[in-house]
Every structure is written in structure tokens, then in C-alpha cells.
């Protein structure tokens, strides 16, 4: 029994939940209720085929991106390829590095091209595309570990700011990472660009050949991974403060050069309890005085 393309309103009656295979999206549109309905209907129509379109070109999308190579035909696939091409001559990267952000953008566009919305967001497993008009803004919370939703910093995006995409990458997440960052959160003009850049920066936060870092060829974990035999991080043991500093510094260097080339606006890099920010935008809530956890829930 296949359980394909589930599209349903969450119990709050405001947010839409989309689920198909590995895609899991929560989105919300704001504006006139009739416009929201139009937007949600458009999303439902668009989303139904997104995974099938991607899978029809999956083999191509798992190959390294190549500047003069052939282009895929699907619109999500084209967003993915465009997002990773700036890196193709520098390093190994496949369009899959931008898949989550590209899907978020595509779904957002389905809403914004059919309905008049004051603002909207599409959160595809932490990679977020959003839409803002006039005086609207979004406040975005950031986590250090994609597996746990503990907010350590926030950023506010106003309409006059060009940022429209947020993505997070790290070795603890669902996707594999070549680096050791717990989380790299990137703000860019589009979600696909943020997704690709977060992958690149998270890969750069690294201590090559460090004995406390356990790495395994990606293909041993997932036979059909686009990373093939590349070593992906499986666990990170104890690190000294200097090692944490060095690893973050390697990521900062890459993040700064991406910022200079206009590929990103801001990046926040986290390893253990250390967080470094490139660019402005981010206010760290607990960088100075680590607030102990307050139990929200008690048995």
C-alpha cells in the first residue's frame, strides 16, 4: 500500500501539512481568507506531482553538477541545479544538495503566483522559503542540532531585506555531511541558494583526519547516496576548545568568501557550544549567558 502525497490542514486550521515520501512540509499563508484558500488549492495541485518529477530525473540529479553540462527539464530540478552551479568548479557537489530548498521555493511560488498574500512561508524540514510584502516581517528561530528544536538565536527578516530563504545543514541531520558542524544556518535570497550554501559551509567546518571523528563511506550507509564513497561524519567525540575554534575558523573562511560573492547574506555556524556568525542579522539569545533549560513539560 503506497501512502502518497498526503495534503491536510493541521488541527490549528491554519497550517497545511504536505507529505510525500521523504518530503515533509509545513506551510502557512497569511492574508484574506479567500486568497489563502486559493493559495492552498494551488499548493495541493502543484505538490501532487513534485516527487514524481524529481524521481524521473533522480539519476541525473545525483551526478556532480557541471557548468557546461546538460540541464534537467523539471522546474524543481532546474532550481536545484542553478543553486549548486556556482560551486561546481570549486568542489564536488550534486544538485541534491539543494533539493529541500528548491522544493520549498517551488511550493511557495505556486501560492504567490496564484493568490494575493501578505506573507507566507514554506518550511521543508527546516529549509524555509518565504514571501513578504509591505511592512510584514518574519522572526526565525535557529537551532544548533537539526534533531532537536532548541532555539539558540533568532533573526528578524523585514520586507525591505532581500533575504527569502533559510536553510540548515549539519552532520546530525537527515542528510549526510562531510564536516563536523552541529548546524550551519544560512540566510540567502532564495531557499535553494541557502540550502546549497549551508551544505558547502557545513562540509568546511572540519578537522580532517581527527581521530575523534568517525567517518563512514556514504554508500555503506545508503547504497544509492549521491556522495558515493565519500566519507560522511557519523559521530564526533570530545574536542578541545582549540580544535572547536580551528574547525569553525575553516568554515568561517568559506562563509566569508560566499558572502563576498553574494551567494549568502548571513551564516551562523555552531559546533558544540560555540557559535560564530558571518554577516549581521542574527541575534544570539544565549551566547553570553547560557540559560539552563527550563522544563516546559514535566511528567
Amino acid at each position, binding site marked *: 500500500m503506497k501512502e502518497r502525497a498526503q495534503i491536510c490542514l493541521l488541527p490549528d486550521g491554519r497550517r497545511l501539512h504536505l507529505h510525500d515520501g521523504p518530503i515533509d512540509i509545513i506551510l502557512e499563508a497569511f492574508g484574506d481568507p479567500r486568497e489563502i484558500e486559493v493559495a492552498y488549492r494551488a499548493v495541493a495541485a502543484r505538490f501532487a506531482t513534485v516527487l514524481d518529477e524529481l524521481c524521473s530525473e533522480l539519476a541525473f540529479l545525483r551526478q556532480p553538477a557541471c557548468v557546461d553540462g546538460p540541464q534537467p527539464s523539471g522546474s524543481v530540478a532546474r532550481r536545484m541545479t542553478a543553486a549548486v552551479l556556482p560551486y561546481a568548479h570549486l568542489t564536488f557537489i550534486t544538485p541534491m544538495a539543494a533539493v529541500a530548498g528548491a522544493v520549498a521555493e517551488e511550493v511557495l511560488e505556486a501560492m504567490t503566483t496564484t493568490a494575493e498574500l501578505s506573507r507566507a512561508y514554506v518550511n521543508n524540514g527546516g529549509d524555509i522559503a518565504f514571501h513578504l510584502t509591505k511592512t510584514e516581517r518574519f522572526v526565525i528561530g535557529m537551532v544548533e542540532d537539526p534533531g532537536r528544536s532548541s532555539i539558540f538565536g533568532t533573526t528578524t527578516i523585514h520586507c525591505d531585506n532581500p533575504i527569502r530563504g533559510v536553510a540548515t545543514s549539519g552532520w546530525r541531520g537527515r542528510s549526510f555531511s562531510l564536516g563536523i558542524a552541529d548546524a550551519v544556518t544560512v540566510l540567502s535570497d532564495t531557499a535553494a541558494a541557502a540550502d546549497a550554501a549551508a551544505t558547502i559551509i557545513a562540509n568546511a567546518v572540519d578537522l580532517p583526519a581527527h581521530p575523534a571523528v568517525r567517518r563512514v563511506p556514504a554508500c555503506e550507509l545508503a547504497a544509492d547516496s549521491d556522495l558515493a564513497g565519500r566519507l560522511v561524519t557519523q559521530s564526533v567525540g570530545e574536542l578541545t576548545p582549540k580544535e572547536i575554534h580551528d574547525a569553525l575558523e575553516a568554515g568561517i573562511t568559506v562563509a566569508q568568501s560566499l558572502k563576498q560573492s553574494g551567494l549568502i547574506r548571513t551564516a551562523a555556524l555552531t559546533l558544540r557550544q560555540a557559535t560564530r556568525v558571518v554577516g549581521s542579522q542574527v541575534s544570539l539569545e544565549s551566547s553570553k549567558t547560557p540559560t539552563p533549560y527550563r*522544563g516546559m513539560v514535566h511528567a
Partner: protein
Amino acid sequence: MDVADDAIRCDACPVLCYIKPGRTGSCDRYANADGQLVRLDPHVLLERAVSRGETLVPFLEKAAREWDGNLLGGEDTFVTAIGAGTTYPDYKPAPFIISSEVAGVDMVTVVTEGIFSYCGVKLKIDTDRHLGAECSTVRAQGEAVGHVTTNEYGSQMLSLGGVRHLTGGSRHEGTATCDALLNLCNGNQVELRIDGGATIIVQADKAPIIDGVREERMRVGCGSATIGMFAKQWFGKVDEVVVVDDHITGVLSEHQAGKLLGVSETGIKMKGRRSTPGRYFRVAEPGTSWGGTNIDDPLSILGDFDREVARPGLRLLMVSTTGEHYAYFELDDALHPAERELPTALQESVARIRENCEPALCTVLFMGGAGGSLRAGVTENPVKLTHSVRDALTRVTCGGAPTYVWPGGGITIMADVSRMPINAFGYVPTPALVAPIEFSLKLSDYQALGGYMDHVQPLNSIQRAEKSRRRLGARLDNPWPLASESGGK
């Protein structure tokens, strides 16, 4: 589903992941469990009728027979809280309040996953080796996650977790603690480092690995107890026996057991502090060698033999409390012990000590306080649930496993994680552990304590919704949660 090598092709969606054994697909929802494609997050039902001789057999949904109301009647199916969901933010009725008829009595089981900020594990490690001083900090991933507590008979106890490590320290301390607890409770291996002590690898129901060495067996008893147990078997075959033990080293000729048998004095001089006759404390420092001491040469705990009493040719056996270490000596003309091969007559007694040592295990008891707001998911007047548990009208189980409810206030429970289905625990980022908890009681008692009667649903209403449920055979060594008397079938 299509099989290639050991990986399987998942056909749940068009990505068609090749999933290696023990791994999940790109969605994290489907996994390859021993060549079977399984969905990871089902709600677990325990079934008593099936599974004979084997424990915890996944019930294949595809091969499921036609539903037969008699076979899967209320007496033989128990709805666990594993995968049930929680009552957060607590005033909601529990996700499942299930009624069933058991031996003619209407029973109800309130099923929820508790979010435990107040929880931890008590770890019993069967070893005599010195793991670390009492009160030493126990670390995982470099973070303090607990401490060394008492030394029990043949075992070292550790206390891990608790609200202070989970929520009272740094963020990393909290997440490292939550990780360690989750892994231990779900039956996975965890490496722990004890300040000023050993590095150990522990896993529920498995032998501990201490500084890289797998612990094979528990000691048979303390040194003094070993003398008492085997004195008769040594009598006449050897003149003196020293059982080396970090706690209480026993000396046959001075021990009451030797005296009663008429063993003569040997002139042996022990180091350490004499407690009562034939029992010595602190003959050496704690360690991971002979009998949990730091000595490699057993003679280092002996002084010179008394020249007035000892005689050349006197036969001396030294043995540890596990029989793992032993040496046999005879006094030379200068009354110095000279090592000789262990005589056949004594080999048997050393082997007997070993044989009496049980396999060393780590055991993990989950401990949590369910006396807080979780109760509001059961009744609108929470203290009535506490009273009902105290009065033994309500039985508390964790994933169908029996619990020990601490006397005194609150509902503080302990449960052996190895008696629960695998992966019964989860976590929330608070950080806190999510543990299954079920309250079973008579329907009439439930009504009396102010239960959510309008949320009670019959068992078969959830049995029909097969899709997201997983059926497991109940463990035969657990009492059946709905039985009127403990003792299972």
C-alpha cells in the same frame, strides 16, 4: 519490495531507496530490519495469544489473518503506550483510554507516553573491579551525566540522569545526558568515563566492558564468604588459603570456618587491617586486577611468616573471588613461599569458584516520576490516581513491563528496560525522555477516581485500525498487565 544483496529496495515512495540492513531510507520512516522493510513509528500492541517460546515477534501486517474477535479478545491484547503520543500540554485526556473485558470484569487501560524531565536510570554493573570512587562524576561525551553510587554485593551501582543533569546544567550537558539515557533505555551501547576511574562500555543485559576488557563473571562472594563456602572442600588438601578481595580478604586458618574444622595455625601474616578473625580490610588499593585490587603479585599482600609457627613445605593457595586469578605456593626452608603448579586436588576447587560465579551483566532500571501533571491526562483530580496506585487498585506498567512503585508520595516508578519492547523510549528536545506508561484498573474504579469516561473506547475500535499499529508477542516472563493476579498466564 525488491531485494539486492543485503540491501532492500523500499517501494513506499518513488525515491525507491536502497536501504542497507539496520539503516533507514531517506525519509527516516522506513527501515531495513534484518531484510524486512518495516515502518518505524507504529503504535505497539502486545498480544498474549501468539508467540510461544519466542519473545517479541513482530506481527506481519501483510500476513495477518482475518480478524477474529475471539482470538484477539480483550483478555489477550494489551495496548501499550509505545508510539501512543503524549498528553502534552497535559490537560488533554490520554491518547488512548481503552476498555476491555478480562475474566468477566470491565477493565480500562489509560495509555500515554510520559514526558519525563524527572527521570534517570539506575545502572547495576556486575563487577568487583574498581570503577571509581563513590560520588565520582560519570561522563558521556565529556559531559557530567551522573555519579558513582554504592557498591553492592558483586556489583557497582551508577546513577545516571536526573533532572539536574537534564535541565539544570549547560545545554550540552542536558543533551548528552538525554542521549545516554535514551541509548541505555533503548538497549544500545553507551561509553561512560568515570572521573579518576575506569572507562566503561555498558548496554542493558550485556556484559560490561571495563577499560577495554569484557567482564566475564561476578565474584562468588566476598573473600570471607568464599572461605565459608569452600572451607570443607579445601580441608586436608591444603594448609592455608587466602581469598583475595578488595573488600574483605579471607584467611582460612584464622577464619571461624577454619577454626571449626580444626585447621591449624600457619603463621601467615597479612597486610591490611584485621576486622574480625580471618577477615582483612584494605589489603591493597582498589584496582582492576586480583579480586578487584590493584595487585598483580599476590605475595605483595603477605608479610613474612611467623618463624615460631610456620614450617617448610607448608601448602598455600591464593585465589581471587572469581577464581580468575590463583597461585599455589609451598614454603621453602627459609619459610619463603615458592610458586608451584596447582595440584589436581585443588584445581577442582578453583574451578568450583569459577562455576559459582554468575555471568556479569549490566542491568538498566528506568526510574521516573509520573506523579506530576501527566496524571491530568488520566483524571481531572490527579491525586486520586496517586491514591489508586498506592492502594494497588491501579497497576502501572511501562510498555507492558512490570514496574516497582516506590512507597511514599508521588508515583515514582522503576522498570527493567530489558523487559520492554525494543526502542520503547523517545525524547523531546526539552531535553526529557519520553517513556511509555500505562495505568490499568477496573472500569468502576476509573469512574470513581474521576476518569474521562467519555473518552473510553473499546479495544476492538483500535484493533481494526491496523495500519499504524504493530503487534508484538508479549514476553512470557512478564506478568500479563491485565491479569487479576500477578504471575502471567
